[in-house]
């Protein structure tokens, strides 16, 4: 599985858009990019997954360029409750039954 690199931490203010970029230079053809969110004292929670171009759901958007060597998670108008660790992962296609390899994640701190 391709290794991912993302910033250790980011700061933001309420109402701002936050973009967290992840690099995955060794991504393979059949790899997907997945993002999870973890609040303190809770297990990680799936946010979004994509293969190429742009994916959007009710929580976030995921932008993946054509070479797929990086991806950007975009959180629109963050609030204090978005303070969490965000993990970028590369995984094989095949449902939710393949193992996840977590990196260090990005600690997003949202301030008033």
């Amino acid at each position, binding site marked *: 599985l391709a290794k991912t690199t993302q910033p250790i931490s980011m700061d933001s203010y309420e109402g701002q858009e936050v973009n967290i970029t992840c690099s995955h230079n060794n991504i393979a053809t059949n790899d997907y990019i997945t993002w999870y969110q973890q609040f303190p004292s*809770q297990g990680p929670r799936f946010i979004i997954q994509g293969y190429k171009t742009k*994916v959007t759901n009710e929580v976030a958007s995921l932008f993946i360029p054509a070479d797929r060597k990086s991806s950007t998670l975009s959180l629109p108008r963050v609030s204090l409750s978005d303070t969490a660790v965000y993990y970028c992962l590369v995984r094989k296609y095949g449902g*939710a039954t393949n*193992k996840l390899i977590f990196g260090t994640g990005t600690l997003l701190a949202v301030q008033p």
Partner: protein
Amino acid sequence: DARVTQTPRHKVTEMGQEVTMRCQPILGHNTVFWYRQTMMQGLELLAYFRNRAPLDDSGMPKDRFSAEMPDATLATLKIQPSEPRDSAVYFCASGEPGQGARNEQFFGPGTRLTVL
């Protein structure tokens, strides 16, 4: 609202004691994962099962850790004997095939283990 449940939520024990952690995956999910989280190592995959059969336990210290799935509704992780370095939060997660674009694993609330 289907959820992964884990018991106990907190466990404090003394070095050398046996610890058993339990997980009930979401009904219908055929894959169960055990992860461990510490400040130093982050989230690590210990082992996982598919259709109750162990697929990969390479992340688990074999001499003291064991993982089983006695039936489709119960997964267990045992540590015997426990050591202070085992102190961590242990997460169970489950997933089902064929979710298409979501491909989501559902995590439980974790068991916070402290070994004195």
